[in-house]
């Protein structure tokens, strides 16, 4: 994870196109300027970044399922629950599943866990639209390669 660059996913473990589910792993970094403010003397992963992490796992799921034909943008967060503190160097598992593939939007459920204990979960809404810039599409494909998103399994 590079929090200050919004690189929240380290590695995709599974993209199951049939079950419409993605599982990924990350480790909260030991050091980040973010921890200087959140909080001084008591570093904790900010809840909003846990939500961003769930959104990115969901986003890569949508990208994997639509084979990078359109870009999902986070549009709504519902029923977000932040159940426990997350400290630096904590390994986490992120799971995202597609609840609904709508016309121009998608709904997912996502959760983060550590050692089998749920840290947080939420229902997320995405607007799904054509990539607004070719540079963004190229970067998303590059990031997908970085995290090992297996596009060979994605539908064509």
């Amino acid at each position, binding site marked *: 994870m590079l929090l200050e660059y919004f690189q929240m996913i380290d590695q995709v473990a599974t993209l199951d196109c049939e079950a419409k589910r993605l599982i990924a792993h990350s480790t909260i970094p030991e050091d980040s300027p973010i921890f200087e403010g959140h909080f001084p003397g008591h570093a904790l992963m900010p809840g909003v970044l846990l939500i961003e992490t769930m959104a990115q796992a969901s986003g890569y799921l949508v990208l994997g399922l639509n084979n990078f034909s359109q870009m999902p943008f986070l*549009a*709504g967060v519902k029923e977000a629950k932040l159940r426990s503190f997350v400290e630096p160097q904590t390994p986490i598992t992120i799971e995202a599943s597609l609840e*609904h*593939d*709508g*016309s*121009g*939007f998608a*709904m997912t459920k996502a959760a983060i866990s550590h050692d089998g204990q749920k840290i947080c979960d939420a229902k997320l*809404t995405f*607007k799904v639209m054509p990539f607004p810039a070719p540079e963004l599409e190229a970067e998303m494909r590059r990031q997908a390669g970085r995290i090992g998103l297996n596009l060979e399994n994605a539908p064509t």
Partner: protein
Amino acid sequence: MSTDTFDKVADIIAETSEIPREEITPDSHAIDELGIDSLDFLDIVYAVDKEFGIKVPLEAWTQEVNEGKASTEDYFVLKNLCARIDELRASKGA
């Protein structure tokens, strides 16, 4: 438009938004009169898709409106929206 479809859609709108059910009529314009914004409308479309087992082609409708090929009334006045839903249900069952 079937009355059954309208009743279900009106119930969905009332449950999804804070609009009293009695204020929702077949002639209501979802955006201009009921004040439903685009994000809230996604929740309604999600519920409609689930309820009727269809996929409301929101992207195509929006594109037609933006290109001037259709008016918002064609899709967002509830009696028209429900008629479209009935068409989608019929074509799915065909």
